[in-house]
């Protein structure tokens, strides 16, 4: 019986990864449509390059690697285009980052505040934080996915967390949740 020719990617694993890829892409891009474009491109690349995937290794980590590369390339391209239009340096794409949420998702003000702070992190720190905290990848996997040494993973994570802590500490009294008074 005819079965598809080339060695295919393990489809259940691929499909199982999609919701996580979409989530990560949303956090990366801050935009649902751009996120799905990124996932689509990632899946297309994964099929193109499927010979490079070592069967039996963690497909999800490999997909995150591809997504990271696609994202970095797209951003570099966008920057170059932007630079041609204007050299004023204002309005970096990252400034426009905003977690796309449905209002009902937040019942606690504190939480949306955390998301805003995460959104203000530089993209490289945000990536590491999300992969560690939300995707729960091992640091070694993050290093491979992002193509950086593990020491860099650790330092980005430290900086990300320090910024979050400071952001909450600096929050104006009115916006901050109740503080414990000693």
């Amino acid at each position: 019986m005819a079965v598809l020719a080339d060695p295919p990617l393990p489809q259940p694993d691929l499909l199982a990864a999609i919701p996580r890829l979409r989530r990560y892409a949303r956090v990366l891009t801050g935009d649902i449509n751009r996120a799905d474009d990124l996932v689509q491109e990632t899946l297309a690349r994964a099929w193109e390059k499927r010979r490079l995937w070592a069967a039996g290794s963690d497909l999800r980590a490999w997909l995150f690697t591809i997504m990271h590369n696609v994202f970095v390339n797209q951003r570099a391209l966008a920057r170059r285009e932007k630079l041609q239009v204007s050299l004023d340096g204002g309005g970096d794409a990252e400034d426009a980052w905003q977690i796309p949420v449905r209002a009902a998702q937040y019942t606690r003000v504190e939480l949306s505040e955390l998301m805003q702070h995460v959104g203000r992190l530089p993209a490289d720190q945000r990536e590491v934080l999300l992969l560690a905290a939300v995707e729960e990848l091992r640091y070694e996997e993050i290093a491979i996915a992002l193509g950086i040494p593990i020491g860099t993973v650790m330092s980005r994570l430290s900086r990300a967390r320090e910024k979050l802590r400071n952001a909450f500490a600096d929050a104006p009294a009115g916006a901050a949740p109740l503080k414990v008074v000693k």
Partner: protein
Amino acid sequence: MNLLPVTDADLNAYADGQLASSRVAAVEEAFARDPALAARVADAKRHNAELRDALDSWLADPIPERLLAAAAGPVKSAPGSARRWIAAAFAVAAALALGLGTGWYTRDLELERAGTPTTFTRQAALTHALYAADVNRPVEVWAPEEKRLVTWLSKRLGFPVAAPDLNSAGFALVGGRLVAGHQNPTALFMYENGDKQRLSLQVRKQPVDGGEVAFRYAVENGVGVFYWIEDNCSYALSGNLDRPQLLSIGRVVYGQLAALEAASKN
């Protein structure tokens, strides 16, 4: 105890549950000495939990068709309908795969959307249990006569059916039979592996308008049933297997049915 001084990396790893067990005592001792360190890690852990809390709900969002199509891989010059079929098969697989990781929220959503008769999974499970337990006569027509079996069932069902080849999953075709369905007759293909475990694929024409894809995984009376509708046909894959096993066999079934469908449309 490992007495190297506690580093930022240790604190992060502690918060993320990735710290080597040999370092845990040193870090916890440092917390006792310096509450500020403990507070930092507590913040990190709380942020992790809150981020997951906020973002986990996204995982249940329905996957757009264009992504399912992209996941299905490049389809060479496939006509639209075959491509749609493949995307649909992937939607089914996605539901199951997603369910494995994140629970079953989408299942019920999809079920509701398509108005699926939930009794079919039960019926499929009962039918499977009845015939799979029959050691000597599980089928009416045996595998050596597969061609005759397929011709007969196709004729009785009124559309072409095929018995997927599950040898790659360790299951050989035992044979098949015609069974009574709710409104339409149902074709049953029985398979068996080396451990004498049996599974069945049941196919029938969908009595209600089945324009949309629906999928369902259920355990009925101890039998796992993976059920979906496509192009006015219902499929139920049943067996006393655990979810991952049924999933991997389901993968083979979709692949083959999709390939057949694509071939027939070419």
